[in-house]
């Protein structure tokens, strides 16, 4: 079971994650938080679940995770920064998770556009954010799932070739509590950085984490559009620049990306 003492021993934040809610089983931590945004105490809280039955992926997809071995958590972050700058909150969160993996597992994942944590092309984790308005504040509910100690046979068969875990990559069983504390420490740093500096500097840093995907062929399924071309960079608003034919560049801000070698 999740050990709160270990988590608090490693937590170094000023407010994020000081309130920790641990749930044995929940449909979705994001839904749990989103339903309770009226409770002020939850505005910077972290909610971690041992077992998520309906973890949310993008557009209603499920996030599958075996119980007790991984991290599935959500947090609410209240902010007054404008929506234009909030666009990059998931990029900032992605950077934070990479920093925490480096600190605890000595391994730095890459960010597949926009913010899937991947290592050697296999998915380690994902982020999904929901934006709500509560009075004058924007509240971002960040939902994060990371494969920590999953063994290969614990992944459903269809995911074994495309997913991986920190355990599989390092051969070490990691403390989930220490990793969560490190993630929250870095998330606070990066979310505050976004608040203070805006998107521009976040995007500059983000480019380093997705550099291996640039100059590669990509297919983006964005809503009802399919864009195929070569990823040539990230623009100053965080959009992925795709050269669809010589000299013709499209910018995409959302969607599923598939990169080819």
């Amino acid at each position, binding site marked *: 079971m999740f050990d709160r003492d270990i988590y608090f021993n490693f937590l170094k934040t000023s407010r994020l994650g000081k309130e920790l809610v641990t749930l044995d089983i929940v449909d979705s931590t994001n839904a749990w938080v989103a339903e309770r945004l009226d409770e002020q105490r939850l505005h910077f809280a972290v909610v971690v679940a041992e077992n998520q039955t309906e973890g949310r992926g*993008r*557009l*209603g*997809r499920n996030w599958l995770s075996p119980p007790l071995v991984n991290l599935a958590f959500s947090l609410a972050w209240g902010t007054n920064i404008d*929506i*234009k700058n*909030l*666009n*990059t*909150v*998931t*990029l900032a969160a992605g950077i934070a998770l990479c920093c925490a993996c480096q600190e605890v597992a000595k391994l730095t994942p890459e960010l597949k556009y*926009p*913010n899937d944590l991947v290592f050697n092309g296999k998915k380690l984790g994902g*982020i*999904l*954010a*929901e*934006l*709500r*308005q509560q009075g*004058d504040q924007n509240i*971002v509910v960040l939902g994060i799932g990371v494969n920590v100690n999953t063994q290969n046979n614990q992944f459903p068969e269809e995911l074994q070739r495309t997913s991986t875990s920190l355990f599989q990559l390092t051969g070490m069983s990691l403390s989930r509590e220490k990793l969560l504390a490190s993630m929250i420490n870095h998330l606070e740093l990066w979310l505050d950085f976004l608040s203070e500096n805006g998107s521009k500097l976040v995007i500059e840093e983000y480019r380093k984490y997705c550099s291996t995907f640039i100059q590669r062929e990509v297919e983006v399924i*964005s*809503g*009802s*559009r399919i864009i195929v071309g070569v990823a040539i960079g990230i623009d100053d*608003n*965080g*959009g992925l620049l795709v050269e669809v034919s010589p000299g013709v560049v499209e910018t*995409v*801000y*959302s*969607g599923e990306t598939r990169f080819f070698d």
Partner: protein
Amino acid sequence: MGQLSMNFSEIKKLIRLFEGSEVTELEVEQEGIRVLMKKNSPSIPLQNQIPISTEIVHTQSPEVVLRPAHQKPDRSGLSNILESPMVGTFYRASSPTSPSYVEVGDMVKPGQILCIVEAMKLMNEIESEVTGKVSKIFPESGKPVEFGEPLFEIDPI
């Protein structure tokens, strides 16, 4: 939304100044609140009490309802145009298998979710800020939208 920075008496002062001037259109935006005043015809002499249309709704009380800049009436002043607050992809439902949040003809109320605009996996649930009837849905679901692009037309009740 930010705190309203213009109060009712300041807006009344603005209207008086506008009425007494030869200016035919005046738009003031401050911290997300936009006030648009228009005289119907610039050729009508000023003493004939030129009707003014504004984006501020005067109710009988007489309260003033201020709308955030991204939800504003159209030029006729009869309906509200809800604009996209960000660049992203417009979705009418929470997932491909879910029913649409609203259809044309539906009644909506403040706080009711109308759609999602997604950018970089940030799902922004866009809520109605008025009570009214959805008269138009501009983008197709799954299409990209720009900042300020019209999403919905809502006839207030």
